């Protein structure tokens, strides 16, 4: 076959591509079709126990582990009148600065109570820095069925040990034998 002119040969690539499967993912129109990988490092979440109490104990290990100094935590004492988490201590202030966070996940590894995990949410863009600082109420997991908004007491008859051993399954439901 005679050599086609250079210009036509160039356009051949374009022409042939028109009949190939499209690999471009349309964002945001088709983003629902393309979920992230299940273990994608997205926005953090502060989890709750089954009765709605917060898992965070305000220990600051996440802040300690953070290589980007993106996390600020201040602990405080639970009282009998105002209880946010099982045990003595809860996180009174919890902030993650997403202008600093590098989504490395070291904070998740550091968390001793699995209070901090990462969701797959990645749409965090803002037009100002202040909005990139997520406060505790922005990070807390939603209340699921059976959960009650803290502050409230621990499930009657339980101790924090029962929570840590995952024996508390709901606002009144306790599995197995409870530690006295």
């Amino acid at each position, binding site marked *: 076959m005679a050599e086609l002119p250079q210009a036509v040969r160039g356009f051949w690539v374009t022409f042939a591509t028109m009949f190939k499967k499209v690999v471009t993912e349309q964002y945001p129109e088709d983003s629902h079709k393309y979920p992230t990988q299940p273990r994608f490092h997205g926005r953090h979440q502060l989890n709750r126990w089954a009765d709605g109490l917060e898992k965070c*104990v*305000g*220990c*600051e*290990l996440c*802040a*300690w582990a953070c290589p980007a100094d993106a996390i600020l935590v*201040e*602990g*405080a*004492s639970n009282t009998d009148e105002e209880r946010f988490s099982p*045990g*003595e*201590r809860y996180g009174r202030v919890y902030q993650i600065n997403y202008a600093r966070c590098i989504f490395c996940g070291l904070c998740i590894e550091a968390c*001793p*109570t699995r209070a901090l995990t990462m969701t797959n949410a990645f749409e965090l863009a803002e037009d100002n820095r202040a909005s990139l600082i997520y406060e505790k109420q922005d990070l807390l997991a939603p209340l699921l069925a059976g959960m009650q908004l803290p502050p409230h007491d621990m499930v009657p008859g339980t101790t924090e040990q029962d929570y840590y051993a995952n024996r508390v399954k709901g606002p009144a439901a306790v599995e197995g034998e409870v530690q006295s």
Partner: protein
Amino acid sequence: MTENTTTEIVPTVSVTIDGVALQVPKGTLAIRAAEMIGVEIPRFCDHPLLEPVAACRACLIEVEGMPKPQPACAQVVGEGMTIRTQQSSEVAKDAQEGVMEFLLINHPLDCPVCDKGGECPLQNQAMSAGRGESRFEGEKRTFDKPINVSAQILLDRERCVSCARCTRFADQIAGDPMIELLERGAQQQVGTASDEPFDSYFSGNTVQICPVGALTSAAYRFRSRPFDLVSVPTTCEHCASGCSLRTDYRRGVVTRRLAWDSPEVNEEWNCDKGRFAFAYLAEGRITTPLVREDGELRPASWPEAIDVAARGLAAAGSRTGVLTGGRLTQEDAYGYAKFARAVLGTDSIDFRARATSPEETQFLRAAVAGAPIGVTYTALEQAPFVLLVGFEPEDESPIVFLRLRKARTRVVSVGAVATRGLDKMGGELLAALPGQEAAALRDLPADIRAALEQPGAVILAGERIAASAGAPSAVSTLAASTGAALAWVPRRAGERGALDAGALAGLLPGGRPLIDAQARAQVAAIWGIDTAALPGLPGLSGDDLLTSASRVGLSALLVAGVDPVDLPDPALALRAVDTAAFVVALDHHHSAVTERADVVLPVALVTEKSGTFLDWEGRPRPFGQVFKDALTMSDATVLGMIASAIGTSAGAWDVNGIRRELTALGPWQGARAVVPGVQPQAAAGAGFRLASWRELLDAGVLQEGEPFLAATARPSAAIVSAAAAARLGSPATVTVTGPAGSVTLPLEVGAVLDDVVFVPMHSSECSIYRDLGARIGTAVDVTAGGAA
């Protein structure tokens, strides 16, 4: 003063540690000898200032010739001993790791919620000297937690490794053995007697030396982690002991203060007031200058407020009185001293916000102001005999108390109350009715006089000698006649510095007499003013100043941080402030004075400025600025602004410039005022004599906002002798009535002279000046019961 420095040859012994041969002083512990060659042996119970106990067993080492590993913290090295630590001995390493494993068996996994986490010797040494894996599979022993051993100190018994540091501190150092190791075996725990909390003035030290998180303080609980904190070495502003502190802050707020090492002064300890009373720093500040307009204080700009203050003070000039309070740094007190003399031309200045007397004023001019360091803490430790006059060390200068107790010095206190502190020092009481100390000093028993004649004997005179006619004269005479060294121990941190800075009528900086031509010339030269511009005659001080102001003798007052309730006649002080035509108050918090002032200028707190406190020894205790970006100005800087608005500069007003001026001036070398010669006065009136002083923890303004600390204060009570209590019929409460009023307090029986009643000077329940209108030594009426 005699120096006890004999060149003593310390015998040494040869020892080999990990193959390194070294000579150490005889009696050295193996753990210290190992430190000398840079080998760190793990330890929990070992503390250089406490007696060895070998309780935790973490420091086991192999000693050649001994069948089993020995604890390095209790093993004194002997001549020719061969020691192998974990560095060179498998036996020692295995022993240490085994002990660590045992210690961790019952230690809870509390690290995330434990205040010690991040600065915990157990965490650190579990990493450095532990095995990493636990073989323990059972249930850990648990206790209820935390429990309060006092309102301030919380105990998590599960975390305790039974090292006995806290109990040894309480017993050996503080003399408050209110905590003890109870039970045995796995149930061993620190505890208190059921009805007696750990209300020691020094309890906070146990939190600091606890090598695990078993003891924590309510004030610092869950406040922060070590990596959050910025630490600044500072000096305590609460009393004249002059403790080194470490101030930790987080995000612009002080979170805690720790005792810091200063072997010459506080060693490694401090008192609970210095440790916990800092909440006042954050609360209730005056934020802007205030100017009175139409009878109301309104916020004003700095230039306006300075201008108003300058015009008012310039108009009053030499008819101004200056009260600086006892809490200023030396630099700020110097600012007031200079401002009064060089800018206003007045000498009516006094730094003492407490009971004073003209006799005391003369005593301070003659014997204390500008004097070089004489008696030191070390001298107290070495003294064969210490006589206390008008001074209760545990309440009024706790570190002096710790030193006297440590030294087991023979102590005699001239007073009316054999206090708990005196008892703990093993001291004796030389009976003297309150206000009658001078007579007791005049008729001193021969054995005490002989004891004072020993080389190195010391007389410690507290600030309460001012309340006792003839006492300042008597201590001066006694010191001169026996050769004993005399030291004056004020209560407030700023008093000695203010005295040396010249913030007292008749005194220029460095103890210079105002009326001495050479002294005047030296000071005028440094200030760059004409000698004639300095006031010619000593001005008013103490009660005279307030009396004069209250009778329109003085037309303006310049007041810094004085709370009228501290003064023996609060009503007179308020009348003086009300009567004075113009009042300028420099303060960081509102008080009865700022509410009545014409101009209020906010000034920096100790955390916002650098400066120097002189402790009672006269030793400078400089400190740096904690909050470097604070916008507030120190008193001296503000005074400099007023001075330049008036049109006088008079040298430097910044802290460094003032330090240079103070250094250039130096202490006065010339003739000093003569010591006063006031004769003792016989007691007047019948009834109970009032004995009183400021307890360490009371209703002082610097202790505001710290409820846990306040709860550890001694309960307010009227204390009388057993005989007097029986005479009153041993009621539960008594009513003490003074000239101006009465208070009802619980009755307590104590080692008090008959016909004497002790009432705390300024507790939350009663203030003798405000509520009774009585002074120390006043005859008061004590009756059973009362409207409680």
